[in-house]
């Protein structure tokens, strides 16, 4: 692997974007599992988020290679 690619390997640097609407709705783009857990804690009743948790994978917690 090249030095540049190695430098791209940043742990704990996953990227999600969110938009909070005036009515309290939250829209999310690039949802990662850690961020889904945060949202689930904010609203434990949200099935849309809960269905994306517990996917049984360490990968969802994994590394980010985003520049």
């Amino acid at each position, binding site marked *: *692997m090249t030095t*540049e690619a190695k430098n*791209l390997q940043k742990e704990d640097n996953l990227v999600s*974007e969110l938009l909070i609407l005036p009515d309290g709705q939250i829209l999310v*783009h690039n949802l*990662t599992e850690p961020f*889904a857990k945060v949202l689930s804690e904010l609203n434990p009743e949200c099935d849309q988020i809960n269905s*994306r948790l517990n996917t049984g*994978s360490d990968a969802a917690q994994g*590394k980010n290679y985003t520049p």
Partner: protein
Amino acid sequence: MICAETSFAKTLQSRSTVARERARTAREMLAECNWCAHRCGVNRLAGEQGLCHAGSETRFFIAQPEVSDELELIPTFAIALSGCDLRCDFCITGASSWNAKAGVSFNAGDMASCAVEAVHSGARTVMLLGGEPTIHLHAALELVAALPDSVRLIWKTNAHGSVEARDLLDGMFDIWLADFKFGNDACAQKLARVPDYVRVVRENLLWANEHSELIVRHLIMPGHVECCWRPVAEWLASELPGVKVNLRSGFWPAWHAARHQELRGTVKPDEKKLAWEIARECELNLVA
């Protein structure tokens, strides 16, 4: 869904072997690029640029495990390549999708190592997206060549590719995850500056359904339920009955959406309700 017997299956060549050969061909074809339906024909190897402004170098702006896609696909290792052949004013990743020079240089071997690591950690799929990956077909095939054949690959596309592109993609990706954004050419021209949109996308979706697994996505846009979603839904019901459809309601007024009065807000509750009613009327096979 009918899985066509692919040429490499007939000759018992591995996916990676075929991808390697096709990647070489694809790179040569950059000398007269016709990967997307714009068919610019520019020589990208010589630095000429078509409508997507991509050169011969591929760059990426996201590579991480995500859980926001279809439940059957997640977690997926998502790799977003910079640049796109469409100019959707509401693009949620517009800054990187409209700029083929965004992000950093893509090396297929390095990215394959990252993807394999994610798969070993439990990612169910590896997803190539953009921007639009079709404009980086050579790099996409190089990535496929560098990955084990067992990795389940998703081609996340705007379905605006050319016949030449899809011929080289045949058998390379397990699932086509394709957007059908606009229900008529006028909206496509107005919102994404693309002509002849509906014909091209329909043709590609029919092809994809014959050659791989297909999931069609439609993002509900404010003010475009009747003009865009209804014709898309009715066509899917008529021509691709039973195909998986993901109706998405998370539109947000990103990038240049404000250029269009109706796109300055989010989807209203009554519009969402109507969109779901249309889906039910058409008896679509909806997936989450």
